[in-house]
């Protein structure tokens, strides 16, 4: 009896343990963004073409970063293709965690991929992740409200214009707010926006000796402007609004203006997702003093971790999912407005895309202007426009984000917030050995 139980148990465990063994199966780890959901839906076409099976693992963004890091560090080899962003790619590429993607074949047409986008994902002349979709930031505004108030949005607005418009269109009694901006703390939330604002006010995160610059006059001016504008002409409780919350507010018709990711344009323009699809127009990201880094640059990209044992097949998948043909496939099956934006010249030359996406030209200009190699007016030792491509930035950005949210909610003054942030960043940078 005893032996039978033990044997059954062991046999059971053995069956669970074997897993599924197939000739060539790739495991793809990705996030749940709409464009990735489409990629998963269309992936049977890739299998048809190549015979390669695909397993999908959809993870929350931070869990994905943690899982892939652990996997690479322990050489687990769990993932063959991973979705990463413009922040991790240069860091991981430098650490030799990713396979270089310079050999995706002639038909890949690297020159067709926008140069600023390629630059975001390149380290020492090598491309470490292929862009799946890319974005900059720009200004969304409600054409109907502007017309009614007799206002005209210039193609290149300044922050002085924006503040004037916000004041004129702020009608909180009707649930209509002058401007919606990110207030939720996080390096990828409020700090993405505040980073661009500091850039255009002429500031920078660090000087050439890696000394934090958060108490500089530029930071002070930029953050004071941000807090004033959002407090006076923004929605209530702005500190809980991130990209998604503001997108919902804008699509429900509650914001007269919104400065945020260009990648949301397709969704704002889609009547199924938005009440203001036919009332929205677009302008460049506003500038204050200098043009550098006024709009951010971001790409969701696909990379092959060096722990993968199926790098060749993985590259085949990436070449497919980031190709011109794939974009056409999405355009033809899901509608051209849903085509992955921001990566290829050919998309923006395609008349069908231009017809379906009237915002295409403005997005294109924004992406071409977002040059990660000159993010600020003054010289900096780092790459990245709305982030600093060093491993410590995730922590730094989170901490500074908290301080600025505290200033926005009125818990501290802007001066106090920046002082706290400066000390925290100094401490981190000392501990990490950048400064003595």
């Amino acid at each position, binding site marked *: 009896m005893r032996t039978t139980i033990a044997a059954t148990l062991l046999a059971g465990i053995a069956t669970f*343990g074997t897993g599924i063994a197939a000739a060539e199966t790739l495991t793809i780890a990705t996030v749940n963004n709409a464009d990735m959901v489409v990629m998963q839906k269309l992936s049977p076409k890739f299998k048809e073409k190549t015979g390669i099976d695909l397993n999908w693992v959809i993870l929350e963004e931070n869990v994905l970063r943690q899982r892939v890091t652990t996997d690479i560090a322990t050489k687990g080899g769990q993932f063959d293709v991973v979705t990463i962003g413009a922040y991790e790619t240069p860091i991981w590429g430098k650490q030799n965690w990713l396979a270089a993607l310079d050999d995706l074949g002639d038909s890949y047409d690297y020159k067709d991929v926008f140069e600023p986008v390629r630059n975001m994902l390149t380290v020492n002349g090598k491309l470490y992740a292929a862009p799946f979709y890319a974005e900059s930031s720009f200004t969304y505004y409600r054409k109907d409200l502007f017309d009614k108030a007799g206002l005209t949005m210039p193609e290149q607005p300044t922050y002085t214009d924006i503040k004037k418009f916000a004041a004129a269109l702020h009608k909180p009694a009707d649930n209509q707010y002058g401007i919606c901006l990110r207030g939720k703390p996080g390096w990828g939330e409020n700090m993405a926006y505040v980073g661009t604002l500091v850039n255009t006010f002429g500031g920078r995160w660090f000087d050439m000796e890696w000394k934090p610059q958060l108490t500089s006059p530029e930071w002070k001016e930029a953050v004071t402007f941000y807090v004033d504008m959002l407090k006076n002409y923004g929605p209530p409780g702005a500190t809980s609004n991130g*990209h998604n919350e503001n997108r919902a507010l804008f699509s429900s018709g509650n914001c007269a203006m919104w400065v945020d990711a260009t990648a949301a344009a397709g969704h704002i323009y889609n009547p199924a997702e938005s009440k203001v699809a036919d009332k929205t127009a677009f302008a460049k990201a506003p500038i204050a003093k200098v043009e550098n880094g006024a709009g951010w640059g971001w790409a969701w990209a696909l990379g092959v971790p060096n722990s993968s044992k199926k790098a060749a097949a993985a590259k085949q998948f990436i070449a497919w999912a980031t190709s011109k043909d794939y974009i056409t496939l999405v355009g033809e099956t899901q509608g051209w407005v849903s085509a992955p934006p921001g990566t290829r010249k050919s998309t923006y030359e395609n008349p069908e895309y231009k017809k379906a996406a009237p915002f295409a030209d403005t997005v294109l200009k924004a992406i071409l202007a977002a040059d990660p190699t000159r993010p600020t007016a003054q010289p900096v030792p780092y790459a990245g426009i709305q982030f600093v491509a060093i491993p410590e930035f995730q922590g730094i950005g989170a901490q500074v984000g908290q301080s600025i949210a505290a200033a926005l909610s009125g818990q501290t003054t802007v001066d106090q917030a920046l002082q706290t942030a400066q000390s925290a960043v100094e401490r981190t940078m000392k501990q990490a050995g950048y400064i003595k």
Partner: protein
Amino acid sequence: MRLKLDRHAALSVTGWLAAGLLFFPIAWMLLTSVKTEIEAVATTPSLIFTPTLENYVAVQERADYLKFALNSVVVSFGSTLLALALAVPAAYGMAFFPTKRTRGTLLWMLSTKMMPPVGALVPVTLVFRDLGLIDTLAGLVVVYALINLPIVVWMLYTFFREIPREILEAGRMDGATPLDELRFLLLPLALPGMASTGLLAVILTWNEAFWSLNLTAAHAGPLTAFIASFSAPEGLFWAKLSAASTMAVAPILVFGWLSQRQLVRGLTFGAVK
């Protein structure tokens, strides 16, 4: 009499309030799951809207719910059986043949629950990698059995202590071996307690998310991994996330209702004396 009635009413009201408070998040999740994405994040949440099942359709379209649900069932019941198999002899030994170190052993077992799980993440990942257990159901069964073992041992120990030793002694007089004693006397007597211990372990495993997210990839992910996959860094997701969560808690909710009596009895048993 009057006073008694008032006290009764006050108790009822408090009970209902507590129940309402506990149930509110679940009710809100259910409501959100039948809203559209835009309604789900509306700043003044609307209570009047046209319910839609589109989120459930979208969730099922993107992910294979049944696969995740089956993994959850295998992992939670498998780990509970394994934990019981290990815990019954351990609790038996400590309850009926205590030594001066029994108390210390019990406390030491419980102390393993005090370390944050992430502290063991890298060692466990390395061991699992070498044994080929990452992303396997067997791996999760082992991890969860070990995680729940201290609680299971403690609960069984309490139940075993309730059983009069005289019954076991009588059995021994009649020539029962320790194994006979376990099988024919102890297990039938402690069955209600074991059942409630098992139920608790099943529920704890069902809801655990740290290890299931960190040790699975494409094959062994249970429902917690299924839920987590519906949050998105860019794009609205609350309604679909709520639909996925509702689908994930539904089976265990039904299971919990059906076994409510056992569970309450198990959790309060021993404590009342």
